[in-house]
């Protein structure tokens, strides 16, 4: 049927897993006092290899493997590349933060790699049970990562909160799968769409979509399932937040796209309403919540809720255009958010020295590069032209307007106006004059790894803002293989 060796379809996942296992084997053999930097380089190497393998997969003919459970196509490759890039940056951010600390950096590296493997698999799995398993792999890794700063009280608290609420949400997702099986007799995404018209209990299917939306809504921190986000982001170490505020969300959005458009296109009228409400709520709650925050990490947490809302707006555009817009938005969101947290992570250091907006006063004075980079990411989060954030919003709202969702677009744009205020407050603080005893005076010099991370994220945000055409074309290709597939089955 297909001549491509089955293993090729999961090559990036294999590479990530092997590297992770290698790290776990090597670490105990290293003498206790020795720097863990070589392990960091090994992890970086593994991610880069996975990245290359993902791009290489684009050359394979699109198809499935392992009894139709894994599918590689332009859609999965898009998300693979995105997730691997985010993980790469997240590793670079953590390089110095964890090396000097008392925690074991090797644990961090291995968990990040296993998590990345789960996330990658989520985007290429087309069998709901495999989706569930990979979701669990990625979630468990992130639960532990949130709690990795064991010696402070807040980090384990964040981890526990994330774990309890997260496992609750995953249960909803599992219910959704069970109900899907009940309604259609299958758990393969493309078979579901085909079997749905003959379903003896169509009500189950509607319920199933709602359950899946709840489960994944939690993962992307969309309102009204967002309550955990600010607490967890505040407590978890910043390099981990950089990762978990982006990569798992990207993967969850990919799954959401596959399930809503791939498995349940017929029920669009039902899930559309739910998504509409979630989008409007997320944008409003996220932005209004962020307005009241003094802590930068909590503000960014609320802002990430709002951005999940913007992404969901694209779902309401019933077309390939909407899918492409959502994919583009996840890419820009990932680039700018990971970048912003890179700065927060370095500025705050291991102990989160900088907390409130006022603490950031004079950051650009102390380190023009760090301050300038954060300012640039904030501008992108606001949606200023020539940054990725602008085109992200632009494509999302254009897609919504095209499908007649004028009100949602207006809610979204008014929200982005409100959002400008709290981002600006931080932006202005960065460019304010610091006092002599200001906490920013303690910020250490930029290290090479962080400079590289900032360089990567700034240039990604800039490229998305000036030449969005290529990336959008890739997103469209991804959307096309995938809507094409769902149309064939109809």
């Amino acid at each position: 049927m297909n001549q491509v060796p089955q293993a090729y379809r999961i090559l990036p996942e294999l590479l990530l897993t092997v590297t992770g296992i290698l790290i776990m084997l090597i670490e105990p053999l290293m003498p206790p006092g020795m720097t863990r930097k070589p392990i960091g380089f090994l992890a970086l190497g593994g991610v880069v290899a996975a990245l290359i393998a993902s791009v290489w997969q684009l050359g394979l003919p699109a198809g499935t493997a392992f009894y139709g459970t894994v599918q590689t196509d332009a859609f999965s490759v898009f998300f693979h590349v995105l997730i691997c890039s985010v993980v790469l940056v997240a590793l670079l951010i953590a390089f110095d933060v964890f090396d000097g600390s008392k925690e074991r950096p090797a644990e961090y590296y291995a968990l990040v790699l296993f998590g990345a493997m789960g996330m990658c698999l989520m985007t290429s799995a087309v069998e709901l049970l495999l989706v569930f398993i990979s979701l669990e792999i990625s979630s468990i890794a992130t639960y532990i990562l949130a709690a990795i700063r064991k010696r402070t009280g807040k980090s384990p608290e964040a981890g526990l909160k994330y774990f309890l609420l997260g496992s609750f949400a995953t249960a909803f997702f599992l219910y959704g799968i069970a109900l899907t099986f009940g309604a259609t007799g299958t758990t393969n995404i493309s078979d579901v769409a085909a079997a749905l018209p003959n379903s003896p209990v169509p009500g189950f299917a509607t319920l199933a979509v709602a359950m899946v939306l709840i489960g994944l809504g939690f993962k992307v921190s969309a309102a009204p399932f967002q309550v955990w986000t600010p607490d967890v982001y505040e407590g978890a170490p910043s390099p981990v937040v950089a990762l978990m505020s982006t990569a798992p969300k990207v993967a969850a959005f990919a799954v959401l796209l596959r399930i809503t458009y791939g498995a349940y296109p017929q029920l669009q009228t039902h899930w559309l309403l739910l998504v509409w409400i979630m989008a409007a709520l997320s944008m409003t709650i996220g932005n209004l919540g962020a307005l009241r925050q003094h802590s930068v990490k909590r503000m960014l947490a609320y802002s990430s809720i709002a951005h999940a809302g913007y992404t969901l707006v694209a779902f309401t555009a019933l077309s390939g255009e909407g899918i492409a817009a959502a994919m583009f938005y996840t890419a820009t969101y990932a680039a700018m958010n990971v970048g912003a947290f890179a700065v927060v992570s370095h500025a705050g250091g291991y102990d989160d020295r900088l907390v409130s907006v006022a603490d950031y006063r004079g950051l650009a004075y102390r380190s023009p590069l760090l301050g300038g980079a954060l300012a640039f990411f904030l501008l992108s989060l606001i949606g200023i032209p020539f940054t990725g954030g602008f085109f992200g919003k632009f494509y999302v709202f254009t897609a919504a307007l095209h499908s007649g969702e004028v009100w949602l677009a207006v809610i979204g744009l008014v929200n982005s106006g409100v959002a400008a205020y709290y981002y600006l407050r931080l932006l202005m603080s960065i460019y304010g004059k610091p006092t002599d005893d200001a906490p920013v005076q303690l910020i250490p010099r930029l290290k090479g790894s962080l400079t590289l991370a900032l360089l990567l994220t700034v240039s990604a945000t800039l490229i998305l803002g000036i030449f969005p055409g290529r990336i959008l074309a890739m997103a469209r290709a991804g959307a096309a293989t995938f809507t094409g597939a769902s149309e064939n089955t109809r």
Partner: protein
Amino acid sequence: MLNDSILTIITFVPAAGAIIVALLPRQGRIIQWFSLAVALVTFGLALHLPINYVYGQPGFQFEVDQAWIPNPAIRYHLGVDGISMWLVVLTGFLAPLGVLASWNKIDHRTKEFYFFFLLQQTAMIGVFVSLDMFLYYAFWELTLVPMAILISMFGRDRGTEAAIKFFVYTFLPSALLLVAIVWLYAKTGTFDFVRLQSILAQNTAAFPPQALFWASLAFLVAFAVKVPVFPLHGWLSDVFSEAPTAMAMVVAGKLGLYSILRFNLGLFPAQARQVAPWMVALAVIGILYGALVALVQKDMKRLAAFSTVSSLSFCILGIFCFTVSGLDGAIYQILNEGISVGSLLLLVGFMYERYGTYEIASYGGLAKRMPNLATLFVVTSLSLVGLPLLNGFVGEFLILSGSFAGHVAWVSAATAGVILSAAYMLWMIQRVFYGTESGMVTDVSAPDMNFREHAAIWPIAVLMLLMGVASPIWMRAIDGAAVKLASPAALVHMAVTQ
């Protein structure tokens, strides 16, 4: 060959300069000299436009039209006509003066200042030369960023609040502007101004009039905030009193007024006429309100702010009467405003550098100590008041004569604004420069204007006189554009079909 790329070069030379500034060492005055050079080069390049402009040729000149983003169809389309050409030149002209004004005043974080200053130049020139709605919008939003950051960094004491106020004031309506632009795109499949204009003019039936009205309103509000038009002027006085001189010189007026002329009159001629009575009323209220509030200001910069509200409202009046002379006057007045208010702010800034205050009551009898500054201040004030032989007269006269026939009552009231403007300006001069010497002026021994300050003001003074006596140099290009705006093809077409 040069004609094809000249607009690109003018637009991006300051941005390239900004990047180089970021890499220069913070030593001596390298950054200042370099920025001055960039500004002068930009101005020199901008002068290429009026020299090579083909007068009498309709449409846009020096055009570049290349694909930028394939989908949605966004083009890199630049071009200028009689209006935007002079605005580009004005922007180029004010830039070196802004550098000179900041020479000593900005003594810390010069690198940041000149980086954002030059970036602001690119954004403003981009607004004037863009003929793709999307490209235009991108530059329009970009103008906010350096401005807000600089106000926050170099504000007197409430800079951050003023910057946020300015940003939010202008950003919120801009979001609605974006909705309107995207709506137009969804309807027509193009962002190109020229194509949009012809589509809107020819297929009037394809657009529901109600929706077109709301779209035009979204445009108008976004621009009116930026002008600012009464009652949307809330940000201006704070920004004027906080912003560094070089930024206050360019923050108000031209961007918003140009956009109203280009897009509200260009794309929605019928809708613009629909709201005209309201706009005329707001303009006259703005003229009188601005002048009356200016009369009671105690702070010279705030006085300048309210005088700006008043004189920009004259431009609005001229625009929304839709007569050729009214539009001519309005466009001319935009240029005047940039030059004369710029000069006023420069002079007030020089005084601040010496005495550290804008408070009118602290001054008195300054003319004896600084005869040069006093003379130039009086000349600038007379230009703002509209004395014949100076530039202000030409603009105000054309506006009033062009609008009088249509709105007798309103325009009669507006002429009172001319008298009031004379009152507040001359009263301020009397209090600051004449009368008994105040304690502060006696105590602080400050020299008269130095060479750098002369270099900044004299070009303006000469220009004020030149624009007062030789207005046809500018009018030649402006008139062609004004004629088109006064009787656009769309209205002719509609009159024929009805």
